[in-house]
């Protein structure tokens, strides 16, 4: 080691500035994380690709490869306290490791390219890279070795296991290699789903507002409450209670909880009276379909659904969801536009 390429020495490393990053997150980092979890600026939350230093690494320090989504970058560095290492951040266009591997932005080509651009070969003496395991689906490890001389070691799934992994001489346990999907993992994903669902719902509210001009029984707060409840069931409650709801299909789980919710709402709002029969039956079809649909969308956020499985689920459930939605909506509209409120 020449002593040149230590952190904060902008005069070297091909003129690119080397940045040392802390292993603690600032209030700004946490605020930023909260915002992207709510879907605000989520597609443009990036760090500059390149080589970063954690602690005071030298030519023998391990090199960890990751994505340039700032949420990923922060999650990684915050788990590296006390470790001296290099972070080779690839340009994944601000997308996390697993999804970027799926999209193709995190892959063999970008890795080889980034090794060259950062001059990594000059900075470290060893020839080993620790890649996140979830980047494996788009990585030809032998090709990386052939073109750059670096061998690829797949690290653990979660950043919190990296220190233990390195301490165990880069041996991962079965547990480190397995993707979990804990209640907390699921909970942090729900705000994005809810915000997106409410955005779509604004359109529906606009339509109801216009319909109210002709309605003999105008849509009111109770209707909105019943609907919002069904949205919450699909986007938040079903994801959260996923392992405990009977069945395997997401739409079934969402539809089941949606039906229970709607029955409770019909009871509470006294829509079970004979003169509201169409409204009650309509909502008992329409609202569980809404919950089922949003639950089905959560397959995209889950970490264990196969495309073959989702396709099968959709082929079976979509006719029911669309059928129940249409018939339910027609019944509710008949009640509200033509029958109205009994005297």
């Amino acid at each position, binding site marked *: 080691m020449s002593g040149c390429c230590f952190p904060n020495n902008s005069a070297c490393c091909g003129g690119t500035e080397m940045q040392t990053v802390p292993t603690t997150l600032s209030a700004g980092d946490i605020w930023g994380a909260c915002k992207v979890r709510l879907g605000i600026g989520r597609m443009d939350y990036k760090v500059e690709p390149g080589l970063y230093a954690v602690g005071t690494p030298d030519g023998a320090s391990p090199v960890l490869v990751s994505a340039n989504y700032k949420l990923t970058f922060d999650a990684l560095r915050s788990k590296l306290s006390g470790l001296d290492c290099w972070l080779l951040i690839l340009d994944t266009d601000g997308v996390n490791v697993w999804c970027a591997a799926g999209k193709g932005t995190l892959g063999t080509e970008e890795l080889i390219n980034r090794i060259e651009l950062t001059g990594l070969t000059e900075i470290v003496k060893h020839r080993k890279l620790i890649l996140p395991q979830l980047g*494996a689906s788009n990585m030809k490890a032998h090709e990386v070795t052939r073109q750059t001389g670096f061998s690829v070691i797949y690290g653990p799934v979660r950043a919190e296991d990296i220190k233990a992994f390195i301490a165990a001489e880069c041996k991962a346990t*079965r547990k480190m290699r397995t993707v979990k999907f804990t209640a907390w993992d699921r909970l942090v994903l729900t705000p994005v789903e809810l915000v997106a669902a409410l955005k779509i719902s604004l359109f529906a509210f606009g339509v109801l507002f216009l319909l109210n001009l002709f309605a003999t029984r105008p849509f009111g707060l109770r209707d909105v409450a019943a609907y919002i409840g069904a949205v919450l069931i699909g986007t938040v409650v079903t994801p959260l209670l*996923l392992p405990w709801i009977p069945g395997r299909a*997401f739409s079934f789980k969402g539809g089941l909880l949606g039906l229970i919710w709607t029955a409770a709402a019909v009871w509470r709002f006294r829509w079970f009276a004979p003169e509201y029969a169409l409204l009650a039956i309509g909502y008992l079809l329409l609202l569980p379909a809404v919950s089922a649909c949003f639950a089905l969308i959560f397959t*995209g956020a*889950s970490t*264990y*659904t196969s495309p073959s499985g*989702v396709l099968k*689920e959709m082929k079976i459930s979509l006719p029911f969801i669309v059928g129940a939605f249409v018939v339910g909506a027609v019944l509710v509209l008949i009640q509200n536009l033509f029958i109205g409120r009994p005297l």
Partner: protein
Amino acid sequence: MKLRYLKNVATLTLAPEKCVGCGQCEEVCPHGVFAIAEAKARIADLNACMECGACAPNCPVHAIEVNAGVGCAAAIVFGWFTGKEPSCDCANGECC
């Protein structure tokens, strides 16, 4: 509680006669689908497979085949409308 999705749908296959027992598939699989015994890999838990596609390209002897893709309902619907392979690149730039 372990989360399990639909049974008997995964397209994963392993050709045991090609397998050299390197263990790479077991290493990259996020759901413990593979097990190595007597220098051969076998599919120990097919129904846990989410078809992420990590195993196939990392198999040095091409013994593994899987129709890899995204298990996302929105992506599949988007694929139906656009005629493209389902992917995370949804219409409005918002993606997963």
